[in-house]
């Protein structure tokens, strides 16, 4: 096998992908029959072993065989092996799609994945084997769904979510109820048509079916909406709805399932259903919040065991989900609540690296999960025993669409009376069109008892609806969005002005509300913030970090960002930037090569060098990326700088100290052609990487220079300096690049005793390649690097 791929590696990439696919499928297909049911074997094996011990020891007449040098025993690794194979397949598929140039632009990934699943299922069937029951409900609900939901909940943009909570709840609760009853009821009517031959399907099974099919699916919505980059409001509306309707679905499902067996529903049952809904929803949120607080509290004490910090986040969240499921509460809402509650506190407590780890792991798991879900959908489609009934299926599809449209339009009409920013027709269309169904519906259908319900028919219809929504709606939504000129997600480079003014306006509105005696939105938000600041933060956040005001945090974040960008763009700094960046002579010399000529000379401020940095940035920045709070699966651009600021603050203080010190020095280190060596840059570089605070020496061939320990933070700065230089010189001249030698250009004043021009020990301790590099990569490509 390896040789085959080797021989053909020269061919085009799609073929390679298909070849890999074929290889793995055959491998998988051939291995499936090597054991009967997966768990049966293992279970049988273990009890068998115990039983064996108690058997008589009379069977000693085992013939002596040659000692097996190489043997094959597949049974005991079967399950993990197959799981790994599937995961590998999914990941390779993901890779493959993005290698094919235009495909990912036209067809959303979810469609491609379902197609792959269909293909795999077909291949397995053709090979004559049994398709494994991949979309087994237990597997789905316990393993595949939680990572996606946790990812969504952890990175949920709280502000827009809370601002639109009323609307979201209306859509989620009332909309789903309406959908369920409308579809269920009319389907029952359709079943009564004599030609359909469905007259044995009662009203309650129909309603049950309606409740299964009516819920908008978060996985599908995420998969499709992420690629269309729609504006924040619409995204959060549809997405929030898909998350919150879980509670409704759970209640309706259990309600109708129970009562289908009994055969009738009374008013009391309906009333209990309503109570049950409240319990399920609020209970789920409560459970999630409790675990969230536990996680935050635990993270307060992890300063000595940083390595396992991410584990707490994951395990507590998963426990929240499972605990909610124990009581038949809404696990999804528990997970969302847990993630959203714990995030601000945990992030203030954990280290930068842990934060990165959590981010990456969540995205990775959720990505793989999503891929697997779609592939499995395809496989399960091929596998299922389908019962196609024209009437049922077509009426389901049509009714779903109609119900969605009517529901959205009428609800918007009501909601708009209470909203300040009304929803336009275009918005309504997108909301209606974005109501995709997905794997949750399928799994719920799969759970049905086939003795009481026409399960096969239901499953067929569900799959048809899913396919329709994912393929037709998923593929056409992007061109429609462009056609209707719906507002897209703004490239929101959040400026400090915006931040200052937004906060100012918040305070202003709160004040005005108080004057009017109106206890509105701002009032309660303000109260919550105060409570949070006064009591909760002190309790859950370690040490001094609880006191940092938000505005300052934001400001430092920006500074760091800019420093990083500056360093990145530093490698592109034209050598026309000669700049003797003098610490004392703060007049920035802007070289004429810079495209932005109108830089005014700043008065001699201590901050002058910061000014210069900013000017350099503004003129030379080529890639100004916004680090958004990302709920986007495919790009990991959640803010890396949200935490670790505290370390940065300390450094900043030190920098300022250093500044003062330097001012006293007469000589000053001149920056050579690339303004790389300037203590400015290095300090900024240092500032940009808070994790550099934890210095770890590595010995992998990085040339080292000694540090002059005169400066308080030289190890870090110098290490970063090396990073920077290497980037700039493209990793040539490793030796030379490390010396802070004055190069030939310009009047060089060797000095700068703090950044010693002698040996400086460089340590490369950044284990992840630096947020800058990653970030840009992430933004460019829609899949995980």
């Amino acid at each position: 096998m390896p040789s085959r791929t080797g021989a053909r590696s020269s061919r085009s990439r799609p073929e390679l992908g298909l070849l890999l696919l074929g290889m793995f499928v055959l491998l998988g297909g051939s291995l499936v029959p090597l054991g009967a049911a997966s768990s049966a074997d293992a279970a049988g094996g273990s009890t068998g072993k115990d039983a064996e011990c108690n058997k008589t020891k009379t069977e000693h007449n085992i013939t002596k065989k040659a000692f097996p040098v190489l043997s094959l025993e597949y049974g005991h690794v079967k399950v993990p092996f197959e799981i790994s194979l599937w995961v590998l397949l999914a990941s390779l598929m993901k890779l493959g799609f993005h290698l094919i140039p235009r495909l990912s632009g036209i067809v959303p990934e979810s469609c491609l994945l379902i197609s792959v699943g269909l293909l795999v299922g077909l291949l397995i069937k053709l090979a004559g084997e049994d398709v494994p029951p991949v979309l087994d409900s237990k597997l789905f609900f316990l393993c595949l769904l939680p990572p996606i939901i946790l990812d969504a909940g952890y990175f949920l943009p709280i502000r827009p979510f809370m601002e639109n909570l009323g609307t979201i709840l209306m859509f989620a609760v009332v909309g789903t109820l309406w959908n369920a009853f409308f579809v269920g009821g009319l389907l029952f009517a359709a079943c009564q048509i004599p030609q359909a031959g469905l007259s044995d399907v009662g009203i309650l099974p129909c309603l049950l079916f309606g409740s299964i099919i009516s819920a908008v699916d978060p996985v599908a919505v995420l998969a499709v909406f992420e690629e269309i980059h729609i504006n924040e409001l619409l995204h959060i509306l549809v997405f929030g709805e898909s998350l919150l309707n879980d509670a409704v679905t759970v209640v309706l499902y259990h309600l109708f399932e129970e009562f289908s067996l009994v055969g009738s529903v009374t008013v009391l049952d309906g009333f209990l259903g309503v109570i049950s809904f409240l319990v399920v929803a609020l209970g789920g949120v409560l459970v999630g919040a409790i675990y969230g607080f536990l996680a935050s509290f635990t993270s307060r004490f992890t300063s000595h065991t940083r390595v396992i910090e991410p584990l707490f986040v994951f395990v507590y969240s998963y426990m929240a989900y499972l605990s909610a499921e124990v009581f038949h509460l809404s696990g999804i809402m528990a997970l969302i609540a847990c993630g959203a509650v714990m995030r601000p506190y945990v992030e203030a407590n954990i280290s930068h690296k842990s934060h990165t780890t959590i981010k990456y792991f969540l995205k990775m798991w959720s990505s793989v999960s999503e891929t697997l879900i779609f592939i499995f959908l395809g496989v399960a489609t091929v596998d299922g025993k389908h019962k196609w009934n024209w009437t049922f299926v077509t009426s389901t599809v049509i009714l779903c669409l109609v119900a969605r449209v009517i529901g959205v339009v009428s609800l918007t009409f009501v909601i708009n009376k209470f909203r300040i920013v009304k929803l336009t027709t275009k918005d309504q269309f997108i909301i209606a069109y974005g109501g995709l169904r997905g794997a949750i519906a399928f799994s719920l259908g799969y759970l049905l008892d086939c003795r009481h319900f026409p399960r096969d028919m239901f499953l067929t219809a569900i799959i048809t609806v899913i396919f329709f929504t994912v393929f037709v709606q998923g593929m056409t939504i992007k061109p429609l969005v462009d056609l209707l000129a719906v507002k897209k997600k703004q490239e929101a480079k959040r400026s400090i002005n915006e931040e200052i003014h937004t906060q100012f306006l918040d305070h202003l509105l709160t004040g005005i509300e108080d004057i009017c005696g109106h206890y509105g939105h701002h009032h309660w938000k303000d109260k919550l913030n105060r409570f949070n600041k006064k009591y909760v933060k002190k309790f859950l956040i370690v040490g001094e970090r609880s006191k940092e005001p938000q505005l300052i945090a934001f400001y430092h974040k920006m500074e760091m960002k800019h420093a990083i960008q500056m360093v990145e763009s530093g490698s592109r700094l034209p050598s026309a930037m000669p700049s003797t960046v003098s610490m004392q002579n703060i007049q920035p010399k802007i070289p004429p090569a810079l495209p932005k000529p109108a830089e005014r000379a700043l008065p001699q401020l201590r901050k002058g060098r910061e000014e210069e940095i900013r000017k350099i940035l503004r003129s030379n920045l080529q890639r100004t990326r916004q680090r958004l709070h990302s709920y986007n699966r495919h790009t990991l651009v959640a803010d890396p700088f949200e935490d670790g600021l505290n370390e940065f603050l300390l450094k900043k203080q030190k920098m300022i100290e250093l500044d003062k010190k330097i001012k006293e020095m007469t000589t000053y280190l001149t920056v050579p052609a690339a303004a790389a060596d300037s203590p400015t840059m290095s300090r900024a570089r240092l500032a940009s990487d808070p994790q550099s605070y934890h210095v770890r020496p590595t010995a992998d061939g990085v040339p080292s220079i000694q540090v002059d320990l005169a400066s308080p933070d030289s190890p870090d700065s110098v290490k970063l300096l090396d990073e920077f230089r290497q980037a700039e010189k493209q990793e040539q001249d490793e030796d030379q690049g490390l010396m802070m030698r004055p190069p030939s250009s310009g009047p060089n004043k060797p000095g700068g005793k703090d950044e010693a021009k002698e040996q400086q020990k460089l340590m490369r301790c950044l284990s992840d390649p630096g947020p800058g590099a990653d970030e840009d990569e992430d933004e460019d490509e829609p899949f995980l690097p």
Partner: protein
Amino acid sequence: MGSSSSNLNTIPNSQELMQETGFSAAHLLRLYERFEFLDKDNKGHLRPEDFEAVQELSTNPIGDIIIGSFFSPGQETVDFPSFVRILAHFRPAEKNRTRDGAQPEPANSSTGKLKFAFQLYDRDRDGKISREELLQVLRAMLEMQVTEEQLESMAERAIQEADLDEDDAISFDEFKKSLEKVNIDHKMSIHFMK
């Protein structure tokens, strides 16, 4: 509310006010009741002390600035029409109003709201937010949690970002531009209760 129309007559110039500010009769009445509530001594106008009596305002970092905004420069009292005019800025904007060019910009439009906010920064009303004015606001908002030099560098940074015509101050247009991504209608509107 059958009684509203009769009470409306106690409010002087109520029709004019409604016309000018766009408040409905019910809203206006409610505001009048609030005005009377704040005006404890029944003077018919409000003084700064009356505003300060509102408890939550004392914990608001920019409480003083807000109170100050109600009073025109030099004046020490606020009568009901002025009160209403200021609050009119916070009415949700109507989208479909047809405006002829001659009408002045309504107070509750985006621009009107922004102008109001701008004036809160720009105390000396010279049309620009100077560094010092920005520093004052920042100082008030950050309530001594940061050092002076951090404040200065923040203010410096803010001015640099926003200041496009390089005059070391933020004009109204620059202010508007820096807030272009924020939905001002949404941000600066209060849902007045009926």
